[in-house]
């Protein structure tokens, strides 16, 4: 089963999930396109896992509609489910089986025939770098290896759409990077991925990102779009000789593409942040403007990319203001 051409792979329309009298997910809507890595980011308890469960059909929405691969997940038959891969937040395979036996179990669970599974398992264990540990009990391998085993198990039946719930939670940065490398490889193979994470800087690896808080969707955008929303515009980082700073500011502040100039307190001498609409257009023009004054010694010019942690904090602060709330609700 495939989404029709031009149709979203996943559509959520005003989805709410209530447990008791509490809305765990409230009024969430988005579309996910085939072949993209869609990230869901937000603090612990913000409703990421519940939303993933709504998309996998483990939960049925209290209101709103969910469509995955063109169908309501609650009505999925066995064949539909074979198109999904799911890596839960925790390691839920069997610690008293070895790596290979767990892979075989996962393959059998999805009905992969005996003839196909051997090659597929070999490939996957190689892909997640667990080939050497295939005879080791799953309970005896490290937490990171268990995550990779769980990922391999989710891929053993070659799903079209993979849901990965907090794959990098609690593991070291090096391994996190390897996970994202593997996700990018899967994307290159044409797979679609929905990945949740608490690590804000990981949104940089996604094609689009949904930011959630308290069960609500705050926004959906590309990583660049998020940056722009946080900073209000593109930002260039320009550094000149400290003695030339006054001249440089004078020239730039008169330039029509410059929206504003800021000099951070803890920045090195001669540094300034220059706000522009579009960094790629403005950058060559501003360099030319600075070069028009031969007395100015330009030391460094480039686009400023603040860490996503900072961007996320800025976004949160902005969304906290009443005006932003009104804007968000609108």
């Amino acid at each position: 089963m495939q989404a029709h051409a031009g149709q979203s792979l996943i559509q959520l329309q005003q989805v709410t999930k209530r447990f008791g009298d509490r809305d765990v997910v409230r009024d969430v809507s988005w579309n996910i396109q085939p072949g993209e890595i869609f990230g869901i980011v937000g603090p612990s308890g913000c409703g990421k896992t519940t939303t993933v469960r709504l998309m996998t059909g483990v939960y049925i929405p209290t209101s709103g509609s969910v469509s995955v691969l063109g169908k309501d997940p609650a009505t999925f038959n066995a064949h539909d489910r074979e198109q999904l891969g799911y890596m839960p937040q925790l390691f839920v395979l069997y610690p008293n089986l070895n790596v290979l036996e767990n892979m075989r179990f996962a393959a059998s669970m999805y009905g992969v025939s005996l003839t196909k599974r051997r090659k597929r398992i070999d490939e996957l264990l190689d892909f997640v770098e667990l080939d050497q540990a295939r005879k080791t009990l799953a309970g005896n391998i490290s937490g990171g290896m268990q995550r990779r085993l769980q990922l391999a198990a989710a891929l053993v039946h070659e799903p079209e759409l993979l849901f990965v719930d907090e794959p990098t939670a609690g593991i070291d940065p090096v391994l996190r990077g390897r996970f994202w490398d593997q996700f990018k490889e899967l994307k290159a193979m044409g797979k679609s991925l929905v990945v949740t994470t608490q690590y804000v800087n990981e949104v940089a690896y996604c094609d689009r990102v949904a930011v959630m808080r308290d069960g609500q969707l705050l926004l959906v955008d590309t990583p660049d779009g998020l940056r722009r929303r946080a900073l209000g515009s593109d930002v260039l980082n320009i550094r000149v000789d400290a003695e030339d700073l006054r001249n440089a500011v004078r020239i730039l502040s008169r330039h029509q593409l410059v929206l504003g100039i800021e000099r951070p307190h803890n920045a090195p001498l001669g540094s300034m942040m220059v706000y522009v609409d579009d960094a790629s257009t403005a950058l060559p023009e501003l360099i030319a403007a600075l070069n028009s004054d031969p007395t100015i010694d330009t030391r460094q010019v480039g686009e400023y990319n603040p860490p996503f942690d900072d961007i996320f904090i800025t976004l949160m602060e902005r969304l906290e203001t009443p005006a932003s709330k009104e804007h968000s609700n609108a």
Partner: protein
Amino acid sequence: MLKNLVRIFAFCAKELNAIRRQPLLLVGLIIGPFLILSLFGVGYQGEQPKLRTGIVVPPGHRDDPQVTELLKRISNTFLIDPERHIYESEAPAIAALENDELDLVEIFPLEMTTVYSTGKAVDIRFIYSEVDPLLRSWIEYLSYTQINELNKGMLFSVVGQSQQQIGTLRDYVSDARQQISQLREQLSGNKRAEARQTIRSLRESGALQLIALSMTQNGASETSTSTQSLSSLQASLDTLDRDLAAGGSLEKQEQQLTELDTRLSELDQQADRVQAIDPAVVVSPLRSVANNLAPIESLGDITKDPATAYVRFYTPAVLALLLQHMMVTLAGLSLVRELQQGTLEMFRVSPLSAFQTLIGKYASYTILSALIITVLVSLMVFGLGVPFYTGQLLNFALLTFMLTIASLGIGFFISSVVSTDSQAVQFSMLVLLMSVFFSGFFISIKSFLPFVQNIARGLPVTHGIANYQQIMLLNRAPATSTYIWLGGIALVSFLLSWLIFSRQFQRK
């Protein structure tokens, strides 16, 4: 279809691999019961324990030959230390009982030696301190049988003495009949003076009085008519003597002497019959002869080798109980562990259904059951000499299969209603406890009220024990009702487990 089979058998490999990785569990399941039965065979004595008994005899009678004889008689069933546990007063014996040096104190009163002269029954007291109802019944039964044996012994002795006295009585009868014969000859020869001399001699010898007295002492009711006749004969002798002195007719007296001789002859015959009877027959004229129609040769000779017989008898029951407990526990832990581990969430996203999950687990544990029972039965047959009729192999396999799926059903039902594995273990233990009491393992289910018997039939092991015994010990096929019961238990428990597990499996 093929994919469904692959999904179902996913659990076979998974469960079997998981169990294979637990060598201690396998040892427990196979070697454990074998060792327990072996130890039972080696250690079981095949009889109830002898009770450590203290005897209280009347003061001064410790060395009495009667006491010695008594101790000899009861020492077959009671353990008596003649050096330490013969007392002449109750107090030290009761103290020993309270200190757990003795199980029983038996008190013989002085009146026991004079029971026949006083004509009153004498109480022999048995004192014990026991809570266990089975041991209490055992002590009371032993006390009863001991008194029975002692009574029989005393009766035997009395009958022997009576038969000796009957011998003396017959001497008197013979002597009297000789004199009566002589008197009749004298009367027919009209030798009146000699006849009167014989009558005097007969009276003086007192033979007739002795006969009457002997018969009265022996209390023989059969001879009471003869005793009355002897009294009238005394009177007849007096009349005859008077008639001889008066010179009257003697016809009537001769006729009386003939009657008397006839009666003495009858008396002699009766005495002969009584004397010929074995005193043991007089004491116990009836004996029980029981015939067991069950072909129990397979158990061996229980009198010569009780331990082997008991091991062989209990092996089928142990097999059935073990199989049920193993299946209930494994299945009981199975579903709840999936829930606790979080694998259920993975199953919900996958194409697996609750039905496939359950059937897969049924299949894996049934294979495990077959493997374990095969090894276990082989060990018991070849290691312990437990009988197994190869002609019953198919019935054995079918019964094992039915017992397995019925037990698994109960286990899965437990697993579907509990929320932690410790709860599952607790419920499995409750099923085991219930099985030990109600399945016929130790207590026959016929000992319970009918409604409790029906509850007991709701346990797979009840049918397992009865029918494994039929197959292994009696070479008999199980009744159809066995399969109906087990099939019913399996079906109902499966449907309930499936229903509840499906609700847990359901998307929410």
